[in-house]
């Protein structure tokens, strides 16, 4: 059992456009930040913002912010955010033993929570 699986980390997350097609829920973490917090490439992390959360598969990217990561513009970021935090936000992340979120799951949440 990895000790870091029990911990939550605060992260600064930038929401950015990417040019390649992005369907999956992926968070690009700064490699140094991830290693410091015991997160490995391929892990699934929950990004928790207030009452809402979504799961993302971790990839490393050295252009991600030093103290966190980058998530491409997507239904996942739209679900987590409001207009005040549309381009970047602070959130908690934790390693989970679950799959990454799917668009249909987010749609279901949106439809049920109305």
């Amino acid at each position, binding site marked *: 059992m990895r000790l870091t699986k029990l911990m939550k980390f605060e992260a600064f997350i930038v929401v950015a456009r990417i*040019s390649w097609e992005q369907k999956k829920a992926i968070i690009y973490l700064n490699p140094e930040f991830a290693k410091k917090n015991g997160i490995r490439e391929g892990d699934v992390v929950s990004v928790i913002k207030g009452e809402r959360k979504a799961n993302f598969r971790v990839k490393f990217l050295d252009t991600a912010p030093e103290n966190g990561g980058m998530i491409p*513009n997507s239904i996942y970021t739209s679900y987590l955010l409001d207009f005040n935090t549309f381009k970047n936000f602070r959130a908690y992340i934790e390693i989970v033993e679950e799959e990454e979120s799917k668009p249909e799951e987010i749609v279901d949440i949106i439809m049920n929570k109305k």
Partner: protein
Amino acid sequence: MICTGCSCLCDDIEFENGKILNACEKGFRHISGYKERRAKNIVNGKEVDVDTAIDKALEILKSTKKAVIYGLDTSTVEAQRIAIKISEKLNCYIDDNSSFCLGEFVEAILKKEVPTSTLEEVRDKAYVILYWGTNPYHSLPRHMSKFTYYPRGSKRNRGYDEDRFLVVIDVRKSEVAKLAKKNARFIKVENDIELIESFLKAIEGKASKYDVAGILREMKRADFNVIFGGLGLKYGLKGNYSYLYNLIKKINEFTPLFFIPAGFHSNMRGFNETLFEEVRAINKFSFLEKKSSPSFAFSELVKNENVDVAMIVGTDPLSSLPYEVSRKLLDMKKIVIDPRETITAKIAEVSICSAFSGIETEGEMVRSDGIRVKLSPIDKSEIDDVYIFKKILEGL
């Protein structure tokens, strides 16, 4: 062919032996993948022919007094004009993505509050090229190679590492920020307003939080400098746009500095200009109240339940707008017109498959710097936005 993959509207796309030449990866995907994941004509979950779907859309639009037409940023100017006529006829609201994207910057340019220029002028003359809150590597992939930093211009012919000075301002060291090495600066910004204050202090020769005096010195050496402002800058200003415009004005007192917005849908500027020509407003307009207002932004109308029908064109609000807005979309009737299958279309009462502007339909678009571009499609679809909107307009 003109690529309509982003607001660069690159005009040098060619085809040779089945290969697409000159496009970036984003453009290549946009052009080569246009037949994939196409929308279907659907009414209440059942597939129908296009005219039945248009008839149902008409029925819904006629049944309400509180409609909004939203999107249109990938439609041609010709289609946008008809959509504006539909809004006028319905006495309803019309808005596009610019109300949460870079609309304020385009508005300032159209109202001549900031000096602007064209990408060709930038290529030929610009010395300091400042990207603020935008990462063209992803959003406008050929911006730097075709128009701004890398090409030799008529007055900048010694190559980028001698004849350009690159400045990148961003919250992170993005791909473009990594290019800031020789003759360049990267500023990692935490607070855009404080950065503007630093520039203003540096103009007065005072010390400040961010060290920007060197950038101003470089600007003074040239007779043409430019800021490309993106979404990061817009949101960093937190509504205080006049701070930025005042800074540009102050710098122009001692050296020429132009401003061009950077990073939006292929014809967002076209929508802003087309609506501006008609009603002197660029977005969030009510034909009933004959004015534009922040409360008429699509997101506000939906959030505050001020509309009960939305005709959504070429955009996917369920996946692109915050939860507080998207959850309210469920409470209204939705007509989605899009060439591509979208998440919003899946929950819409009516979905109509349209054509890809520039690939399957001709017309005009407006580049990010205001240059009008005639599209040259490689395919032809009878059913495009113009066809659909004309039918709706005639039926009203």
